[in-house]
C-alpha cells in the first residue's frame, strides 16, 4: 500500500511538474490589468501594454530620452509649427501600409472615445490643427509655443485607420481593431487573466526576441512573487521592496532595479485658513494655519530623517531627493540640498515661529498607492513627534484619499503624495507648485495651494522657451525658489524593481513601464 502511494506521488509529481515552455517564449507576471483600446484610459500601465502592439511617432527609451519611432525626424518650422517626417515602408500587422493618414486618424480619435473616465485629451491639448502634407510628412500647429510636443507625441498611440475606424471597445478586445505596427501582434485577451501576444515578423525595428509573449495579470504582490518562485512566470514587475533580499538569495532568480521617475513628497496645505487637522495640544483647531509660516515648514523638513526612511522603511531601495525633479533629470538643480536632519534645530525653529510647545497635526496618506506609503507616513509621524509636534497618522485606501485632495480646497492639512515625472519633466514644477489656475491649466496638482509670483513668472517663461539649455537653467532657478519656500517637502524617489528567472536580462525603465522589449536572453 505504502509503495503504491509513493509511486502515485512520484507519478503525480511528474505530471504536475511545470511543463517546460520553449526558450523563445516569455511569460510576464504583471500587476496591472490592460485596457486594450489604446485611447481609452491614460495610465502608464496601459501605455506600456499598448507599446507592444502599437507604434508611436517618438519613442521614449528606458531613461525617458526621446528617440525616433514611427517618425524618423522632426523639427520646429516656426514657433508654433512642427513637422514630422514619417518612416517609410512600415506595415501594420494586417499588411496595410502606415501613412500620415493613420496619424491624423489617431489624433482625431482620442477625444472621440466614448465613456472614457481618463482620456488622452491632455496629451494633445496643445495641438490646434494637424495637416497631412504627404503620405510621409505631417505638420502640427500648436496653440502656443510648445517645446514639449515631441515628448507629448511619445504618448500618442498610432492605430490603423482601416482597422480602428468606428471600432468599439469590444472590437479592440476581440482583436479585430487591435492592429498596430508594434513588435508584437495581439492574439487574445482574457479579462482579469491574461493577454497573449505573438512576435510580428514584419516589425520595422530590431527583431522582437520572444515568439510568444504572455502577460499574466497578478495584482497581488505576494502571489506575483510566488508565481515567479514557482516557475509559472519568467518575469515579474513591481516587486515589493521587502521581498528583494529574499529573492536575491535564490540562485535561480535575478533582481533588476533602478531609481524611477516617481518622486514621493509631503504636501503642506498653505491654502486653508484653519483646519481640523491642525490643532492645539488639547485637540481644538488652531485659529490660524501654522503651516503658512515658512519657518514651520522649514522645521518639518529639518525634522525628517530622509536617510532613515530610505534605509529602514524602503530597505535601501530609494534615493533621497531635495526637489521635485529626480537626480540627474532635465531641470535638476545640483546645488539644492535638503536641510540637514537636526531635531534640536527644528525645535528651535518651531519656537521661533511661535510654537515652542508644538501643535497637533495629522499626517494623511494613501495605503495602497506608492511603495510602503503607509509605513512612510508612520515614520514621518514618529520623526515629527520628536521635534515636539503632537502627531496623528491617518492612512486610507487611495479611493478614499484622492477625492479629498484639491486644488482647490484640499480637505487635509499635511500628507504624502507621489509624482511620476516621465511624461513631462516640467510638470513636476508647473503641475505641483505653480499657483493653481483653472484658466491656464497650471498648478492642477498643487494640493497644498502654494503660490509664488516669482516662481510662476519664471516657470511660465521656461514653458515657452524652445532652447533646451536656457529652459534647463530656468527650471533649475524656479526649483530653487520653490524649495527655499518649502512649497512642499520632497522625500525620495522610489525604485522600479523587477525580478526574473536566470537566463533573462531585464532593463528596468525610469517610467516604471514593463516592456518585453527590455527583456533579452542572457
Amino acid at each position, binding site marked *: 500500500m505504502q509503495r503504491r502511494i509513493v509511486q502515485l506521488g512520484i507519478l503525480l509529481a511528474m505530471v504536475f511538474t511545470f511543463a517546460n515552455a520553449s526558450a523563445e517564449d516569455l511569460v510576464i507576471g504583471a500587476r496591472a490589468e490592460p485596457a486594450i483600446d489604446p485611447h481609452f484610459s491614460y495610465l502608464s500601465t496601459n501605455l506600456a501594454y499598448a507599446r507592444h502592439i502599437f507604434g508611436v511617432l517618438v519613442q521614449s527609451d528606458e531613461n525617458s530620452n526621446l528617440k525616433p519611432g514611427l517618425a524618423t525626424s522632426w523639427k520646429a518650422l516656426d514657433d508654433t509649427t512642427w513637422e514630422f517626417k514619417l518612416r517609410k515602408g512600415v506595415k501594420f500587422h494586417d499588411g496595410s501600409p502606415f501613412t500620415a493618414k493613420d496619424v491624423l486618424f489617431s489624433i482625431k480619435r482620442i477625444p472621440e472615445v466614448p465613456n472614457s*473616465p481618463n482620456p488622452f*485629451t491632455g496629451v494633445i491639448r496643445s495641438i490646434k490643427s494637424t495637416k497631412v502634407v504627404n503620405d510621409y510628412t505631417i505638420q502640427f500647429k500648436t496653440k502656443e509655443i510648445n517645446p514639449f510636443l515631441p515628448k507629448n507625441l511619445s504618448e500618442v498611440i498610432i492605430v490603423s485607420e482601416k482597422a480602428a475606424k468606428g471600432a468599439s471597445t469590444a472590437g479592440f*478586445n476581440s482583436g479585430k481593431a487591435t492592429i498596430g505596427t508594434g513588435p508584437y501582434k495581439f492574439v487574445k485577451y482574457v*479579462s482579469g*487573466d491574461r493577454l497573449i501576444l505573438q512576435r510580428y515578423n514584419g516589425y520595422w525595428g530590431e527583431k522582437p526576441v520572444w515568439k510568444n509573449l504572455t502577460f499574466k495579470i497578478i495584482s497581488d504582490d505576494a502571489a506575483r512573487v510566488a*508565481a515567479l518562485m514557482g516557475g509559472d512566470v519568467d518575469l515579474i514587475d513591481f516587486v515589493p521592496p521587502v521581498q528583494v533580499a529574499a529573492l536575491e538569495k535564490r540562485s535561480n532568480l535575478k533582481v533588476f532595479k533602478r531609481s524611477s521617475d516617481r518622486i514621493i513628497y509631503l504636501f503642506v496645505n498653505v491654502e486653508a485658513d484653519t483646519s481640523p487637522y491642525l490643532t492645539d495640544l488639547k485637540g481644538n483647531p488652531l485659529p490660524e494655519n501654522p503651516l503658512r509660516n515658512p519657518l514651520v515648514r522649514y522645521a518639518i523638513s529639518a525634522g525628517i530623517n530622509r536617510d532613515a526612511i530610505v534605509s529602514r522603511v524602503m530597505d535601501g531601495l530609494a534615493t533621497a531627493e531635495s526637489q521635485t525633479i529626480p537626480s540627474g533629470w532635465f531641470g535638476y538643480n545640483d546645488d539644492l540640498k535638503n536641510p540637514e536632519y537636526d531635531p534640536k534645530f527644528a525645535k528651535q525653529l518651531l519656537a521661533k515661529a511661535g510654537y515652542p510647545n508644538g501643535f497637533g497635526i495629522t499626517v494623511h496618506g494613501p495605503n*495602497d498607492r506608492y511603495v510602503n506609503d503607509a509605513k512612510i507616513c508612520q515614520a514621518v509621524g514618529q520623526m515629527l513627534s520628536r521635534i515636539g509636534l503632537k502627531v496623528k497618522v491617518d492612512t486610507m485606501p487611495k479611493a478614499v484619499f484622492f477625492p479629498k485632495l484639491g486644488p482647490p480646497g484640499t480637505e487635509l492639512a499635511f500628507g504624502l503624495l507621489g509624482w511620476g515625472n516621465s511624461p513631462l519633466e516640467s*510638470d513636476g514644477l508647473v503641475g505641483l507648485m505653480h499657483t493653481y489656475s483653472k484658466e491656464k*491649466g497650471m498648478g*492642477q496638482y498643487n494640493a497644498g495651494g502654494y503660490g509664488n509670483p516669482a516662481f510662476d513668472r519664471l516657470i511660465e517663461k521656461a514653458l515657452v522657451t524652445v532652447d533646451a539649455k536656457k529652459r534647463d537653467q530656468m527650471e533649475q532657478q524656479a526649483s530653487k525658489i520653490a524649495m527655499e519656500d518649502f512649497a512642499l517637502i520632497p522625500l525620495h524617489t522610489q525604485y522600479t524593481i523587477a525580478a526574473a528567472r536566470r537566463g533573462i536580462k531585464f532593463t528596468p525603465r525610469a517610467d516604471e513601464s514593463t516592456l518585453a522589449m527590455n527583456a533579452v536572453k542572457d
Partner: protein
Amino acid sequence: MTVFLIRRFTQSILVLFLVSLIVFIGVYTLGNPVKLLVDPRATQEEVAKITRDLGLDQPLHIQYATFLKSALKGDFGNSFIHNISAIKLILQRLPATFELAFVAICITIILGIPLGMWAGLRPDSFAGRGIMAGSILGFSLPSFWVGIMLVMFFSVKLGWLPTMGRGETVALLGIEFSIFTPDGLKHILLPAINLSLFSLSLVIRLTRAGMQETLPLDFVKFARAKGLSTRRVIFLHVMKNILIPIVTVLGLEFGAIIAFAVVTETVFAWPGMGKLIIDSINLLDRPVIVAYLLVTVTIFILVNMVVDILYSLLDPRVRLGEKKE
C-alpha cells in the same frame, strides 16, 4: 409551493431594490471617481467634461433614478475601467468563480461529512481529536495566509502544482470551464482547498455535533435492538436526521463562498468575480461595484430558495408556503 415561490419572488425584488439603494448611496459618498481615475495633469475643464459625460455631476437622486431606469432594462452601465457593460463583465467572470466554489463545496462535502462522522463516532480516539483540532485551525487561520503557505509548500517547494491562475478552458454550452481539462484541475486544486477550509471545518463540527446528539436517541437504540447493521443505522437513519442542518449550512456557505472568494481569488490570481470586485473597489469603478453586489444578492436569494426546497424534501414535516396563523 407556487404560493411560496411567488411570495419569495416579490420579497426578492424588494430586497434587490433596497440593496441597490444602499449600495448606491454608499458608493456615492466615497466621492467622485473621476478624481481618482483621471490623469492628474488634466485641466479642470477636462475633469468637468468627463464628470458631465459620465453623468456624475447630477444630484444623487437623479443619478439613482437614471441608474434604476436603465437597470430595469438590464443595463447597469459601462465599467469605467474596461468600457464594457458591467453586468456582462461580471457574467464573463462568473463561471470561473462558480466552478471554484463548486469544487470547494465538493471538497467540503466529500471530506467534511465523513470526517465529522468519524469524529462523532469516536470522539475520544486519536483521529477524532486530531480532526477536531484541525477544524479549529481551519476556522481560525486567515485564508490569505493559508493560501500563501499552500503555494509556498506545494508549488514553490515541491513544484507539484501551479502557483496561480486558471488553467486551460474548454467551452461547454458556450461557457468556458476549466474543470474538464487536466491542466484546469491542476490549477483549481489549491485555490479550491483554500476556499473550502472554513466551510470544511464548519461541516465537520456540525456533523460531529449531530452525530453525538443523535446516537443516544431512542430510535437509534431501537434500530440496533432490531438487529440492523451498524452501517445501516448510521448511514441511513442517523444520517437522514443530521443532514438537515448540514444542508442549510452548505447552502448558505455556497452563497458565501461565491460572494467572498475575494481573498482566495486575489492570492491565487484567479480571474473570477472576487478579483474583479477588489480591483473595481480600488479604482472606484462604480457600475461594476453596484452590479456585482446585486448579482451576489441574487445568488444568495436563489441559493436560499433551493435550500428551502431541499429542506422540505429531506424533512416532510416542513411545509413550504404555509403561513402560521
